[in-house]
């Protein structure tokens, strides 16, 4: 079994309002950054999962995203996996 670090980036689906991003976008020009557009505030979920291989880990985290971690009406997500050092055999 291998441990994988999963980073899930959750973003708003197209057309879903992002009031936090909009507010930040309105605030930045006050500090002189009038050249900024398309500010978005999402969330980032990190976890470590143990699985036989990367494909199995990805399948499980994808299912977590569909069933719990994201709401498909509101959110999209992007998943990145990195293998951590394999545990020595017990």
């Amino acid at each position, binding site marked *: 079994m291998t441990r994988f670090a999963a980073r899930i980036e959750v973003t708003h689906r197209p057309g879903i*309002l992002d*009031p936090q991003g909009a507010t930040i976008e309105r605030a930045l020009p006050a500090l002189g950054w009038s050249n900024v557009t398309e500010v978005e505030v999402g969330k980032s979920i990190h976890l470590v999962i143990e699985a036989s291989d990367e494909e199995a880990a990805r399948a499980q985290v994808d299912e977590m995203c569909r069933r*719990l971690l994201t709401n498909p009406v509101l959110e999209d997500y992007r998943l990145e996996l990195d293998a951590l050092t394999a545990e020595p055999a017990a």
Partner: protein
Amino acid sequence: MTARVGVVVFPGSNCELDVRSAVRLLGGEADLVFHTETDLSGFDAVALPGGFAHGDYLRTGAIARFSPVMDAVTRFAADGGPVLGICNGFQVLTEAGLLPGALQKNAGLRFLCATVQVRVETTSSVLTGEAAVGQVLAVPINHFEGNFVCDAETLQRLRDEDRVVLRYVKNPNGSLDAVAGVCNEGRNVVGLMPHPERAVEAVLGSADGAVLLRSFLAAGAGSPRSPRVEARAS
């Protein structure tokens, strides 16, 4: 002839006593049901009250939908039993897939606490059976995530199937098509952001919510789930 309502209490619910009190005031029976319960067979109707179930961590309602009681609520709804979700309860029902769409943050990025006017759009639901189409009701709202959203196809279906139960007269939170409440295909599951239980007697500022809860009680009393109905039929 009245209904016995199970009022579900999640950790973080905070309107359960208001709902119980309103139901009793209107002549119904009501008992609290903790979220670890798995049996709702003693009830004619089930209400999910407002609050912040499980702290609303991750998303509103996202953790609550996995509470043990939600399997029982899903079965209760599938059997045709009246289910009502108020505010956070509405959010839980959308997360559980019992109602379409989702509730996102208010368009103005403000928590809203105000009495608003909502219009009854259909009387074919367990919440509006005793109301009149076009009737305008003054009912409080109290939410940050009350901005109803769904995809275009779902909205078209909701319109075509007359499943928008209530609309805001003046849209306070950016809700798509000014939706304040919707029902499922069977019309026995209704969710709404306004709080009818806080508008059941004049001293509260409005008694307009009473017609909604009376409709819900009547639906419970006449529901196929009700042991009283089975007794009459046999």
